[in-house]
Each structure stands twice: as C-alpha cells, then as structure tokens.
C-alpha cells in the first residue's frame, strides 16, 4: 500500500471511528471497522496503529483496540456526558467538556468532586458553561505537551 493510499485509508478510518463513537457511544473494534469499511482486519489494525502513533487515538496498552478516541473514552468513566438524548464518557474533566464542544450541542457532564465525592453536574447551554466546579490540572503543560497536545 502506498503512502498516499495509507493516508486516505487513515482519514476514512478516523472519520468512521468518530461517526461510530457519536452514534453508538463507543468506538468500533478493529473487526467492526473492517467489516463496515470493507477492508481486512489487518488493514484496519494497521490504520489504528498509525492513528495511535500520530496521537489521534490511544490504543489499549499491549492491544489493538481503542482505549481513547479523544475526547471520547471507549469505556465508562467518572465523566458521563449527555446531549441530544444520548450519552458518552469523557477521558477526564477536560475531555468531557470537549465532547460537548465537538458535538456543538447543549448538554451536561455528570461527575463527582475528586476530593469529597459529592455529585457535580456541569451544563453547557449556548456555549455557556454553568455549574459549581473548578478543574485541576496537576502536571505543567511542558510535561504533557508531547502526549496530548495533538489530540
């Protein structure tokens, strides 16, 4: 497969991954993506690995399936996002808000204070967030730049 066609495939796979996340709540498996796109599992897996190498998605450590299609999580987390009558999970506080931004939708994030575990709900309506919450980032930006700046 040439470099150009790999790039085309990766774009197609990326769009499919995000379409499925939005519609299903979770990203597709390698096998599911291969079936849906009419490609081999080997080609789908190779594309997932290239997208992961490019920090577009994150794969399960040691595996081939998606752990994160940022800002969406591939499994339930403490950051439940609801909008348009559907729900998703964010990888973290930042990503949970990012899901509502990516969707361009009014919605809510249901979570809890990491300190006291009291329930917290943040809503976004018309691009305006509301809720009694702050967000803490523990690691200075120059340390996480390499890992997440391109997500």
């Amino acid at each position, binding site marked *: 497969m040439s470099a150009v066609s790999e790039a085309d495939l990766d*774009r197609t796979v990326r*769009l499919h991954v*995000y379409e499925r996340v*939005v519609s299903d709540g979770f990203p597709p498996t390698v096998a599911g993506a291969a079936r849906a796109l009419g490609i081999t599992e080997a080609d789908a897996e190779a594309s997932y690995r290239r997208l992961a190498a490019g*920090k577009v998605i994150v794969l399960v450590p040691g595996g081939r399936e998606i752990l994160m299609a*940022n*800002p969406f999580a591939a499994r339930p987390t403490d*950051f439940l996002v609801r909008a348009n009558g559907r729900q998703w999970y964010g990888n*973290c*506080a*930042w*990503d949970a*808000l*990012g*899901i*509502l*931004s*990516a*969707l*361009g939708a009014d919605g809510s*994030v249901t*979570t*809890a*204070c*990491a*300190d*006291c575990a*009291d329930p*917290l709900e*943040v809503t*976004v309506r018309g*691009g305006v*967030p*509301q*809720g*009694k*919450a*702050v*967000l*803490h*980032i*523990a*690691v*200075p*930006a*120059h340390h996480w*730049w390499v890992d997440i*700046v*391109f*997500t």
Partner: protein
Amino acid sequence: MLFFRSEDHVRRWCEARGREVGAVLSLDQAWRLADGWYRNKLRADWRRHTLEETEELLRSIGLVDAFWALR
C-alpha cells in the same frame, strides 16, 4: 484532569496526597480550553493544532504563567 467543588477541595486533595497544587481553572476557563481544543475534532478536515496555535489558545484564556509554557 479532575473536577472539584472548589479550590479549597483541590488544596485538600493535593495535601492528602503530598502533591503540590497544579493549575486550577474556573469552569469558564476550562470550557474555553476544551472548546478551543476539540471544537473541530469531528470535522472531516480536522488537523492537529500547531504549537503556535496552542500557545495562542492558552494566551487567549489567560493561561500565561510558567505552568503553561510549552517550550
């Protein structure tokens, strides 16, 4: 990156773990950061932010101290 009820809760959580407090963002700042970062993520023509674009995003939110330096 976690949600807390208030900055007091952030401090208590960090103290209990022997960690220094990092950066505490207001909900408005957090939203603007997430919105600037992910707004185009589902678009077919999405591309990564450049270093310069990310620096401008942080500046626009007032995240300008050493904690937010990218280089």
